[in-house]
């Protein structure tokens, strides 16, 4: 067991999970001394019928203050400010956020304004500016991937000044996360694959990156094993409610792991490819995950080898000689991407040149690489990656992941 000299672990969000948990929300609100929640979502969530499900599940037992599904994918200060008016006008006393990363981040920002009775969110930007618990806040994730409901951070854009503002405090965390299988039941196959691979990446990176610790490791191993056992089954049989629930639980476990021990190069590059080319986060994660392992191989291959067990199960693990296990782990993840590609009729991209937008056009071009590599150097996640990421390294990984070639590990500069 890996025992660091010093470590910390905190995951204080109450997790209520099952096939019919939404119905328990009125009881949870009551326990939190709240009576009139504002329900927050985006148009996608409404279109998928999820707001209807939430509303039906709770409306008989709690007075809904307002429903607002106008949170854009790149929410900003103005949106948060507008929502604080909605909250106040409707005399709300709690927030229920239904959605993915953007809705969750918006809800966190909103909770600062309404709890601190403030108008200017910028007063609370940065780390640990909040000193006391905020208003009751329930998160209902709808993607089984991002883990935003478990992170103590929120990123909110200021579009007027072209900047992103970071907020960090344990008081931003929701009181309760509701993991209900109905929320992911209708998620399309390729989206299920991408979000699950985001969760997989959270678990894998938390296990190999510098802040790993025994508790985050234990959460990561459980998450990896659950995703590996259930993902392909769910893709092939989308109405498998139990499988969906297990994937959502896995994403929660992965969120608990990485919110404590952070992530590395897969996210570093993923953030910049997302920023430069608008590629969905999960897609970037699936593509870069094997490269992240190859890139750090010389520093952490014993940890990578340990991942073979939760990924591939006891038979493969026993059949693979100890010194081959790390490579087998990487091979296994590549094969998983291939299987997901096949099972989604080719919609799950295996490498960068394969990512297409709705119109069938390539989203990432080789001419983007320079910008991607430059932005990567400034990404906060790079500090927790075992190897020191620089421009050349980023280019090396981008070149290889263009057409799915394995990384030539000899070319990685050994800086760390």
């Amino acid at each position, binding site marked *: *067991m890996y*025992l*660091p*000299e*010093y*470590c*910390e*672990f*905190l*995951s*204080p*969000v*109450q*997790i*209520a*999970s*099952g*096939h*019919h*948990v939404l119905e*328990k929300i009125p009881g949870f609100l009551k*326990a939190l*001394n709240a009576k009139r929640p504002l329900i927050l979502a985006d148009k996608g969530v409404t279109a998928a019928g999820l707001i209807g499900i939430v509303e039906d599940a709770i409306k008989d037992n709690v007075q809904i203050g307002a429903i607002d599904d106008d949170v854009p994918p790149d929410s900003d200060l103005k949106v948060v400010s507008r929502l604080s008016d909605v909250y106040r006008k409707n005399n709300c006393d709690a927030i229920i956020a239904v959605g993915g990363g953007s809705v969750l981040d918006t809800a966190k920002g909103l909770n600062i304004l309404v709890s601190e009775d403030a108008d200017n969110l910028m007063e609370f930007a940065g780390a*640990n500016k909040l*000193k*006391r*618990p905020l208003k009751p806040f329930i998160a209902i994730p709808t993607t089984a991937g991002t883990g935003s409901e478990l992170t103590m951070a929120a990123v909110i854009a200021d579009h007027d000044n072209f900047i992103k503002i970071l907020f960090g405090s*344990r008081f931003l965390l929701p009181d309760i996360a509701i993991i209900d299988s109905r929320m992911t039941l209708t998620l399309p196959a390729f989206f299920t694959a991408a979000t699950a691979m985001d969760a997989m990446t959270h678990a894998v990176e938390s296990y190999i990156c510098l802040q790993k610790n*025994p*508790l985050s*490791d*234990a*959460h990561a*191993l*459980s998450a990896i094993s*659950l995703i590996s056992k259930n993902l392909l089954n769910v893709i092939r049989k989308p109405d498998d*409610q*139990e499988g969906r629930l*297990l994937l959502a*639980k*896995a994403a*929660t*476990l992965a969120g*608990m792991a990485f919110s404590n021990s952070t992530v590395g190069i897969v996210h570093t590059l993923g953030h910049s490819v997302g920023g430069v080319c608008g590629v969905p986060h999960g897609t970037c994660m699936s593509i870069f995950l094997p490269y992240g392992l190859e890139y750090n191989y010389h520093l952490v291959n014993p940890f990578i080898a*340990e991942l073979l*067990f939760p990924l591939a199960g*006891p*038979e493969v*693990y*026993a059949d693979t000689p100890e010194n081959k296990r790390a490579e087998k782990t990487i091979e296994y993840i590549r094969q998983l991407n291939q299987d997901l590609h096949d099972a989604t009729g080719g919609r799950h991209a295996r490498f960068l040149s394969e990512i297409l937008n709705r119109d069938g056009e390539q989203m990432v071009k080789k001419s983007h690489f320079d910008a991607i590599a430059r932005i990567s150097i400034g990404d906060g996640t790079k500090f927790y990656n075992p190897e020191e990421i620089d421009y050349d390294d980023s280019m090396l990984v981008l070149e290889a992941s263009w057409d799915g070639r394995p990384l030539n590990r000899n070319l990685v500069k050994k800086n760390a």
Partner: protein
Amino acid sequence: MSRTDYSDFLCPIKFCCGKLALETLPAELRVYNARKPLILFSNKAVINGLIDPVKQAFDDSEMVAGIYDGVPESPTLSTIRELSDIYIKNGHDALIAVGSGSVMNLAKVLNIVVSGEPGDLKTCQGEDKITKPLNPFFVVPEASATGLMANGSACIDNFSFTSRYLIPDYLAIDPRIVQQETVGVIIDAAMRALSSSSFAYTLPDTDYFIDPYAYLAIQTICENLIPVIENADSKKGFKDYLIMNDTEKGKMALVTASVIGGFISFCQPAGIVMRLSEALSEYCQLSSGILAGLLLPYGLEYAMLKEGYQTEKLLLALAGPDVYSRTPENERGKSAMGILRDIQDKLFHLTDGYIPRTLAGAGISENQFSEMIERMSQNDEGIDSKGCLSILNHAREGRPVSDI
């Protein structure tokens, strides 16, 4: 669909473990906007010299910490009254409890009083009667870490309380504080944690959120308990102090595992082994933790046969993926039980027989079983008398439970 479709999990504690953990206390208090903690030390903590390192951690913090050095082993309501006067008079805004279970217990009750009205002690009695967060409450456990460190229960005189809000906010495990403890106490805490974790980890319907905590506790105890005991100062014998040096990390890990075990037993109803060992401890000199360790394999075998507990899964936590993968599927449960019995056997030898391998060895006679079970079922209607008797009989002779 699984039987227990719904699960509800919460672990509000921030664990902080390792070198200089004490030095994080001031910064963590600031997160809660607390400036003036009252630090409670048990008498034993004072004797063990724990005041100085804790005090020093506040040296550069510009915080004025109040020190109360002498919480008695059995505090009463008048201790609470005295302390709440100090807390309020001096304007404290947080509690830090340093030491063993009794200080933690006292601090929880004190926190109810100082966070609300004096009358709250009456209205907050019982289960889940506390409705909002209390003032910041941090704990710094000694090596005799018991369940009380990380759970939400407390009792004093005739008042008892259970609430998520009694669970500490912050738990700092520092090598300077877990330095010395007797082997008997270490084994008691570890085996108690191993029992609650093993039952939680092998539940017929896996609880995926308790699983990582249970897995870690089992793995840690299995890897570290024997080496730590082997390194104890044998000249002084098991009843005397064990000085920590090269086994420092192992011991830190054990304390962490014991604390996590306490948290797990708060989340899960007490299994048959914990209930039996509590009852048995009144019939002999051994503590309930040590008895739980002895009964554990028998209880698990019984639970596997009766309710489908996944004992095969335990092998992974006890022996790691290599052994687990190499062991044929249908032998994994048996192997796991073998490892548990092996630990018991090693403890027997290492402690010159102080830790018994069988109930017969513990000097408990068969005649006492039925009377004991009778008494148990008077207090606890759900008790499986036949099962209890079977477990006790097998554990008496050291014979695995192979059918029911």
